[in-house]
């Protein structure tokens, strides 16, 4: 009986640990540390508390990610600063290909690495790209499943940010 209970317990643990439902608008974002894509060391969303952060999950093999990358970089150049940044998270990707992607598109915003996809799972992503606008308190304010457009950035994201270059 004890053995049966132990096996059932293991199965339940497996289901619970796998079945993360992710985050919704208003939820706090997961803030576990992730390695930087370049330069070594780790960072976490907690390090960005007090700033607006547009978290962008992407991968170099993802075609829509290639389409949205230039828009994100332009937005970063316009609005990036002490109160706002785009934060890329390269998910389930080869690190060398990810670094190549960053160079190819001249991305200037910080990039973290999520090779095993655990962070993507914690956020509840269903694929790449996906974008989460996180407020200074660390809560999700906007969520875009799929590529983000220049129009969306201008009309939905920019109005939430502090005046001027953030």
């Amino acid at each position, binding site marked *: 009986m004890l*053995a049966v209970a132990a*096996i059932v317990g*293991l199965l339940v643990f497996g289901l619970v640990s796998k079945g993360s439902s992710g985050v919704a608008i208003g939820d706090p974002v997961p803030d576990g540390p992730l390695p930087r894509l370049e330069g070594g060391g780790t960072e976490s969303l907690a390090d960005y508390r007090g700033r607006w952060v547009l978290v962008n999950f992407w*991968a*170099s*093999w*993802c*075609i829509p990610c290639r389409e949205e990358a230039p828009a994100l970089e332009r937005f970063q150049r316009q609005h990036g600063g002490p109160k706002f940044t785009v934060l890329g998270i390269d998910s*389930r*990707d*080869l*690190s060398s*290909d990810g670094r190549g992607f960053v160079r190819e598109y001249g991305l200037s915003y910080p990039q973290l690495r999520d*090779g*095993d*996809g*655990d962070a993507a799972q914690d956020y509840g992503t269903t694929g790449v790209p996906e974008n989460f606008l996180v407020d200074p308190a660390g809560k999700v304010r906007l969520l875009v499943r799929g590529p983000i457009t220049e129009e969306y950035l201008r009309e939905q994201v920019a109005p939430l940010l502090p005046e001027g270059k953030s």
Partner: protein
Amino acid sequence: MRARLVLVALAVLAALAPAAVAQQRVTLAEIEEEVMCPVCGTLLQLAEAPQAQQQKAFIARLIEEGRSEEQIKDALVAEYGDEVLAVPEGSGFNLSAYVVPIVAFLIAAIALAIGVMRWRRAGGGPSDRGGPAGPSGEEATRLDADLARYDL
């Protein structure tokens, strides 16, 4: 003459050695059977997603560089984590994948053995019950009479 034969044999061995090494080289198909496509959640050999294509190209590149199967799997784990392996490594928590079925089997076998022993002790065994009773004298007489009507 003998020295010449030895030299020829050594030359033949030297010529065959690289071919033997090349034959031992692991193939993409072999690795594909043992690793997962992290995005698709299936074996890599069944996956056709863009991420799977990237992963296959990565493995092919490592094979081309002459890496061993172990080195290639280590490189994949470094990129995608432990879950890229279709069969988990036999260490840490992953060891439970091997230990739990064995322990469960042993516990079930012991429980079954104890159950059978108790059942037999309680008089439930077939040896204690005895065989089925044969026909009575009257039934045997009727059976013989019935059989006699058929010319067997």
